[in-house]
């Protein structure tokens, strides 16, 4: 039995401890905002925060989460108020298909928490998520916009 704190709520999941956090979120707990893209920590679609640090949940056994506090895309908004990254995403019309965007947004939110005014190089280094639709240009613009917001 894994006991997890997700978006401020306690969840009990009776799963094999080796199960990646991604599939516990998606299949066991029904939180499908976090996406499966590659399963090998390459694409970032599955990015969540554990204690504020971006983590690729497809490659993290649920047993390794320990006491860590998990934030998923569903919990990024604060009491219904969108995170400024989400707001900037809407204002800049960032998503195309949108499938990579949960992961992009989680990575960007973690970047801003660490560096409130990221340079282009900071963005290049932190944003290693794959977007096949090719929204990188809008992602960059939206991160800068959120930093100024």
């Amino acid at each position, binding site marked *: 039995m894994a006991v997890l704190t997700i978006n401020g709520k306690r969840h009990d999941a009776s799963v*094999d401890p080796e*199960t*990646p956090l991604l*599939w516990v979120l*998606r*299949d*066991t*707990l*029904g*939180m*499908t*905002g*976090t*996406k*499966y*893209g*590659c*399963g*090998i920590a*390459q*694409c970032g*679609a599955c990015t969540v925060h554990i204690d504020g640090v971006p983590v690729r949940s497809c490659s993290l056994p649920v047993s390794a989460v320990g006491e860590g506090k998990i934030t*998923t*895309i*569903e919990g*990024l*908004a604060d009491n219904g108020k*969108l995170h400024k990254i*989400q707001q900037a*995403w*809407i204002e800049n*019309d*960032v*998503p*195309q*298909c*949108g*499938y*990579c*965007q*949960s992961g992009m*947004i989680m990575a960007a939110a973690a970047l801003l928490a660490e560096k409130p005014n990221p340079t282009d190089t900071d*963005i*290049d*280094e932190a*944003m*290693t*998520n*794959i*977007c*096949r*639709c*090719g*929204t*990188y*240009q*809008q*992602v*960059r613009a939206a991160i800068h916009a959120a930093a100024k917001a």
Partner: protein
Amino acid sequence: MNAIASMDRRSFLVGSTAGVFSLGFAIPFARAQGAAGAVREINAWVVIHPDDKVVIRIARSEMGQGTLTGLAQLVAEELECDWSKVSTEFPTPGQNVARNRVWRNFSTGGSRGIRESHEYVRQGGAAARMMLVAAAAKRWGVAEAECTAANSVVTHGASGRKLGFGALAADAATMEPPKEIRLKDVKDWKVAGKGVKRLDTAPKVDGTLVYGIDLRFPGMLTATIRDCPVQGGKLKSFDAAKVEKMPGVRKVVAVDGTGVAVIADGYWQAHKALEALPVEWDMGPGGKTSSATIDAMLTEGLTAENVFIGTKIGDAKAAIAGAAKVVEAVYSYPYQNHATMEPMNATAVWTADRCEVWCPTQNGEAALAAAAEAAELPVAKCDVHKAFLGGGFGRRGRSDYVRQAVLIAKQMPGTPVKLIWSREEDMMHCAFHPVTKCKMTGAFDAAGKLVGLHMRISGQSILASLAPQGLQNGMDPVVFQGLNGGGAEGQFGYDVPNLLVDHAMRNTHILAGFWRGVNLNHNAIYVESFMDELARAAGEDPLAFRRKYLKPKHRAVLDAACERAGYGKAAPGIFHGVAQIMGFGSYVAACAEVSVKDGKLKIHRIVAATDPGTVVNPAQIERQVAGSFVYGLSAALYGECTVKDGAIEQTNFDTYPVLHMDEMPKVEAVLVPSGGFWGGVGEPTIGVAAPAVLNAIYAATGKRIRSLPLSKHDLRSA
């Protein structure tokens, strides 16, 4: 309880069970009849709620390209409704069949979403407006001509009386549809033609949008599949007993004689069991094929006699034979996977009496046909519910995964089963970007004028793989994208008095498919790299050389890109390369700015010009253009699927790398619509991405790259 018995859309999709989501298509359609104050369907395209909310029906799929928003703009423009009140829904393919194909084509590919349907969707919006106006005129007892509609309100000019669309909807729904419809002039557009924001963004930033892979139904199981690693091979045997006792595993089933699937409570359990499952394959005749054997076959085709002639003007062979100077070069283009971010998936429920499928698809009607065939049920007893797509790029025009999902669900009657492919399965099984080689031969006369051009393409035919019924006496006309002698789809851009484009069709056991940009991708590389080679051979500037031979619209779009880029005025150490092409009904061109330092390429900036004739949403076109460079440069820099023992060797993003943020050049889109036609924008720009960069690399290094991906070439100076 038999799950299918409860499978009306409400209980299944809008159901209140925690974790079960509703989809955009979930609300059953309102019909014209019904109590006053109800939601009204004015016609197939337009539904109006009593509170003025407008629901526009979208037949084409939304996979990120923005067609949903563009089509809604076109309907709204003619409807004269308040744009802020607009939402959308997807009719199902089954409803289309039941209603005599009132929404016409659902297929979403070939950048045709808007250009093929703009007229009838606008007519749908206009007809609905006219019915609303007629209803108001009738209620007021005045002539229709005295009433106008704007912003979801009908006004009687003389008396100043007003009625909102919501209040008129019930009456309007009973009006005769108009016989004559006049569409607005493009110059009078207020919503269409404007860079309005997409309608589908909000649920994409908080994780609430339900993609196919996210569907959850009560009692649902999850399956994952392994198909024979070699296309055309067969499943020999598997040892289910070895995994049946693993946690969560429900059943191990053979699929279609070529694959095996594990059905389990959740994906991870299915995946682990499938990994542990002993399977034996009969690889079939394809098992002896490798990249080297394919390359040898294509090389033979470069000089073969028996070929299909696509374009013939004058006598290119004679011009080459009598030329003062001949230039020759051979190019090649590898297999590539679409690699949509969302792996293939479909959810199906089957009983002996009914089959329903929920899936991301670019071709709802083909998915329905595939589902019915696999279900062994009449189409009328099946339906397909389209989910938003986590990328399409041509991959989801095929319904192989739909067929598999139904065949699996059939072995669990009454239980919803969601089939999810692993990324590895996805990488190894698609209809890949076709492999081709090309021999280009150009002829100059004594005065240095380009008088002849022969383009010999050797390689795969997509139609032979996927739609042989489309072949014309064996010839695949799609091979000649961007190389046609004329026509509105994609004509060859240069006036050369003697031109021959021919195709030696060489197919392999590996399926070739429609891959965003399709054959235009390699055709543009071949033509535009070679034009650069010809310019250099003639001792002329690549832009000036092209301008001498380009047809006016092709030249205008290249000029627009070069002007904005400041062609010829690059800073020291920075080099320009250009390319143009016409495809999917649009003219596109690019000017790339690159530098190469110690063999390391940096693409600084790309200016891309597009003439799509008519612009429906400039902001979304800009995004399609920028995205096209990500897709096209991923292909140019890294994209290659190699073949060993008949199977594709690349299995995930570690072996099939794609462009990341840090490599993304600044893309500037210049729109130069010349009016009078409707071209597509989701694909053509991909064609110019690679050649513009390759030509800039030549300018920077003197190295001519004739095969992709770039990552296998050494760009250090010799």
